[in-house]
């Protein structure tokens, strides 16, 4: 007599992410429709691309043989300018951001000051750095001065937002204790708030300097100085070998900046 297995075989299938099949297929259909619509909206022009591809071959061929020497002086000048812009903008940004940093922290300032600071912050932060650069170039003329202003405003927005959040999360008991001794607002900020955030603040400043350098390579495209301006000139002259060299220089310096800044931050923390 052979044993018969009366137990039904148990199977398992993965639970579906969206339970209702109707909703699931509707979602699929919508996504497909959107993709089709999108691709048509992009007006991909095959002839233009075919034409472009031959140029792309030439372009990338030249990139592989970068020419550092023909425009050596411009490249060096450009990268120095980018670095100088970063340094000035970072220091100026740190100093100018201080009122905003404390003003945008809900727990240490009166409500109207807080709201005003937040409003300024929102405006500073929502404009892309290139848009800011365009506006500053129109106001202050071409050149690195407009770039410095752009990066300064960007630094202020970044530092103020993140450090203010840091202040809002600090240990309230210290502040309470200081208030009860009759400390003034300034004493409270200097001895109660600052020691709790200074390490993080320094870390953010160094991170931000790295970001500023990265941005300083772009804003030159709209006339705000730095290596971006040199790149824009090289591309405009179809001088792809110089452009390739500039791109390499940018990549190397951006990476150096990134590793340098993260090494310093690790040592500080």
């Amino acid at each position, binding site marked *: 007599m052979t044993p018969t297995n009366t137990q039904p075989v148990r199977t398992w299938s993965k639970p579906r992410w969206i339970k209702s099949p109707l909703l699931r297929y509707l979602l699929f259909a919508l996504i497909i429709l959107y993709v089709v619509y999108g691709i048509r909206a992009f007006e991909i*022009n095959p002839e233009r*691309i075919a034409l472009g591809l031959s140029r792309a071959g030439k372009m990338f061929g030249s990139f592989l043989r970068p020419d550092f020497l023909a425009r050596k002086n411009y490249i060096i000048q450009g990268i120095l300018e980018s670095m100088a812009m970063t*340094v000035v903008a970072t220091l100026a940004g740190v100093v100018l951001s201080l009122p905003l940093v404390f003003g945008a922290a809900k727990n240490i300032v009166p409500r109207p000051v807080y709201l005003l600071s937040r409003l300024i912050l929102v405006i500073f932060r*929502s404009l892309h750095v290139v848009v800011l650069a365009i506006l500053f170039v129109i106001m202050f*003329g*071409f*050149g690195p001065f407009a770039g410095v202003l752009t990066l300064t405003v960007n630094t202020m927005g970044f530092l103020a937002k993140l450090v203010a959040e840091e202040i809002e999360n600090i240990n309230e008991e210290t502040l309470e204790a200081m208030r009860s001794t009759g400390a003034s607002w300034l004493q409270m900020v200097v001895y109660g708030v600052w020691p709790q955030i200074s390490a993080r603040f320094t870390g953010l400043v160094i991170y931000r300097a790295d970001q500023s350098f990265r941005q300083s390579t772009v804003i030159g*495209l709209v006339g705000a*100085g730095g290596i971006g301006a040199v790149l824009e000139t090289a591309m405009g002259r179809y001088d792809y070998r110089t452009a390739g060299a500039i791109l390499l220089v*940018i990549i190397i310096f951006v990476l150096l900046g990134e590793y340098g800044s993260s090494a310093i931050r690790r040592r500080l923390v």
Partner: protein
Amino acid sequence: MPITTKNGTVQWTPSQGEVRKKFLQRLLLLVIFLLSARVISQETMWPFVLDAPAQVKDFISRMFPPDFRYTNRVIPALVETMNLSIFGTVGAALVSIPLAIIAAKNTSPSRVLRLVALAIIVTTRSVTSLIWALLIVQIVGPGLFAGVLAIGVRGIGMISKLLYEAIEEINPEPIEAIKATGASAAQVFLYGYVPQLLPTFVGVTVLRWEINIRESTIIGIVGGGGIGFLLNSAVNRLRWDQVIVVLLAILVIVFLAELISAKARQAVT
């Protein structure tokens, strides 16, 4: 001698060496700052800068009243910008999955391929989307398609970097357990890796989308389509009453994107 007693009160002074070190650090910082400021100053046309207050007053007076009829051009451009950011992000995310798997030390099929993948990640990440747009416009011609490619290429670098770091830090135990049941490679991937990586992947992609919205607003400046094109043309025609409408539109769309992104990232983590 750090602690001294003077007139019966104990006073603490930092040691000589410490004072000297701090002083030298500050001096060095000051020297770097001044040198940088000099570089900037030499390259700046100061008469233009001094002229700025008058210019700014002029712009602001010409911004009002804003030309709200321009919204019938701004709204289609906003839709374009939105499409640009969504397609750019999704495309980048799709390319990033295989790239991250190849680049992660523990899942890479070969060391040579890994180096190639890392090189791609570094290059795409160190060059900003505006510079990518500058290059791509020369290949595919100006328009939305160039914009999508530029946004996408820049996104690949960031998403794959964060994703491959997540893969490298994965908890090996569940994977071991699934392998021990005799699961195929595909099953190990699906049930071992995917559940651990999905929150990171979705979080990073949404964050990138938020950044891409900002980038999409400017990519049009170099011919990548979207609202940046309108901004550029309004600036070039000195139509400040239209510029302000475009800027307001950018503020609104960036603000909305930030809200959506924050909500979505809260949901996945």
